[in-house]
């Protein structure tokens, strides 16, 4: 029994994420128990040994991401899963993974914050943290699933992007999507695109430039790789005073993501060429938009949506297209405005951007609330 066999399953979101990780080639998991992400650790603790992999519960989230980074340099595809408080603890190491170009996947199953907040309740408050959580200039890749099927699909994509761009990738889920149970179609393994990091050829020495995404050796392969979170040249040697070395490194690290927004940023769109009112939504909140656009049409308002499957880098192009036709853009989210400002910035006054926000208790934004706002603005 290796990776899950193709077929149709009825799974919890967390299970779909864990099974997808194994299919993507993940063989190392380190984590720390935290609601509502614990199920991912539990499932991988059972499943990873069955495929020869290792799952270990560490002493805290800092140790968990540290072990994941070590495992990645030992050649493994590796991940961790957590929620807000643990995600906060991991931020320094996420910056280290970015700076050292260490592929890894971090799942954040969002709950109500700040602080301990409401541990069992759903929220979307970590959107900006997933983008700006660590210090310094960096770029994040953050994916946002809105169904159990997408917990599966986007986990595989998260590993692929991490390996392709040699960077940490965050799967920003939420309590509802991670805990709900739905149908999942698992395709035959040969139909699934699985990417792995580019390895250096014998004798190569530049693992941190000048290529946009340099080849990555593992430890124990004879490359004498020097890994450091300090500013370093393409050979991994520290340069802590030279402005040019720093600019060259950090501009490349950001560029390798920002120059590929078109490939990384993924959205689902509906009727954006013709709508009067647009919706921009993501994660659990976006599940309401399918009904809402139909009901709006029935009431004579042409509505469309951009559903963000990638939050970062921000899918600006799709939002701009939406703003070309829609005069109003509704942004529902379970926080006190986060993606809202990003939409407002992107449309640059081309459309009126209207927030719909709800926090606390895990109460979802209902289709009626979004519809009400559409009719009010139409």
């Amino acid at each position: 029994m290796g990776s899950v066999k193709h077929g149709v399953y009825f799974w919890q979101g967390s299970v779909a994420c864990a099974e997808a990780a194994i299919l993507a080639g993940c063989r190392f998991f380190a984590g720390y128990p935290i609601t509502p992400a614990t199920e991912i650790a539990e499932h991988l603790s059972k499943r990873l040994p069955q495929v020869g992999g290792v799952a270990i519960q560490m002493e805290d989230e800092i140790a968990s991401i540290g072990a994941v980074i070590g495992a990645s340099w030992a050649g493994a595809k590796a991940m961790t899963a957590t929620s807000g408080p643990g995600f906060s603890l991991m931020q320094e190491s996420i910056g280290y993974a970015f700076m050292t170009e260490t592929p890894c996947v971090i799942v954040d199953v969002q709950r109500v914050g700040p602080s301990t907040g409401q541990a069992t309740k759903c929220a979307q408050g970590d959107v900006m943290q997933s983008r700006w959580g660590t210090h310094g200039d960096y770029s994040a890749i953050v994916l946002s699933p809105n169904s159990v099927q997408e917990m599966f699909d986007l986990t595989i994509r998260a590993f692929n992007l991490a390996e392709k761009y040699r960077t940490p990738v965050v799967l920003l889920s939420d309590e509802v999507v991670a805990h709900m149970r739905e149908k999942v179609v698992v395709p035959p393994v040969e139909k699934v695109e699985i990417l792995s990091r580019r390895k250096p050829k014998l004798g190569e020495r530049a693992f941190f430039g000048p290529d946009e995404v340099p080849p990555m050796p593992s430890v124990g392969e004879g490359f004498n790789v020097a890994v450091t979170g300090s500013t370093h040249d393409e050979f991994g040697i520290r340069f802590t005073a030279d402005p040019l070395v720093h600019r060259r490194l950090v501009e490349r690290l950001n560029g390798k993501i920002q120059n590929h927004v078109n490939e990384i940023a993924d959205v689902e769109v509906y009727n954006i060429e013709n709508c009067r009112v647009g919706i921009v939504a993501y994660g659990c909140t976006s599940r309401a938009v399918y009904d809402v656009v139909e009901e709006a049409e029935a009431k004579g308002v042409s509505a469309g949506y951009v559903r963000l499957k990638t939050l970062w880098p921000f899918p600006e192009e799709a939002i701009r297209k939406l703003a070309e036709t829609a005069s109003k853009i509704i942004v529902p989210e379970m926080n006190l405005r986060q993606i809202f400002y990003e939409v407002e910035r992107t449309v640059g006054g081309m459309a009126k951007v209207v927030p719909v926000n709800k926090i606390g208790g895990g109460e979802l934004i209902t289709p009626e609330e979004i519809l009400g706002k559409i009719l009010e603005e139409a």
Partner: protein
Amino acid sequence: MTEAFSVKMYLRDLKLPFCPGCGAYTVMHAFLRAVYELGHRDLSEFVFCSGIGCSSWIPSPYFMADSIHTLHGRSIPVATGVKLMRPDLNVVVFGGDGDIVGIGLSHFIHAARRNLDVLVIMVNNMVYGMTGGQVAPTTPFKSKTTTTPYGSFEYPLDAVKLAVAAGANYAARWTTAHPNELKEAVKKALKLQGFRFIEVVSQCPTAFGRRVGFRNAGEMIRWFKENSITLEEAKKLSEEELAEKIVAGEFVQRHRPTLTETIYTVVKEALRNAEN
């Protein structure tokens, strides 16, 4: 033909960063000499993990080897991931007292408890040297540092005893006045399995020694030599008398099953059951 020992056999051609008189030179030399005497002519079977602090620069990037210079305090977690995915490699952690038993203390205890197969060499200079000499968890009581200008009002931590209590397979303490004993301890530790810990009490003439009355590195090393006692001698002393001494020697050597053994026992059985 046997190549004569030279540290250069194992180093990149880079200028070392340590201050004149720093104990890191002694530790680096003793470690590489031990590696040489064990028959390694390069470091290809090793991976080095270190954190932030002066002694974290011993392996990285100076050793011609795979080295991961991690965040402050996080070398042991990173070493955990490396060792679990590459059990065949010798994973060695270098760090200072602030790195290993200050900010990284919890990882140290848990790695010893798990009996993680790594050798941790902690260079204890009793101070945060790289940041200019602030009080550390290992600073002797009443010592003046830049953040305890009236003398430290805290008691120092005994990292070796802690490693023993937490379950390490090997724990020893030596000082930079004992380079040969240190080298022998490294050789022994490298031949053992599980969590192995060597504390090296070391001088920081720049950021500590001159503030507590030592004029140079030599005076500090002499002080280490004169104040080091064996475990046997330590048994006869009161707690107050011991506070002035450095207890040097081997505190434990045992053969508890290691994390690699216990974890892969589980993995192999799960794999076999899954395949049947």
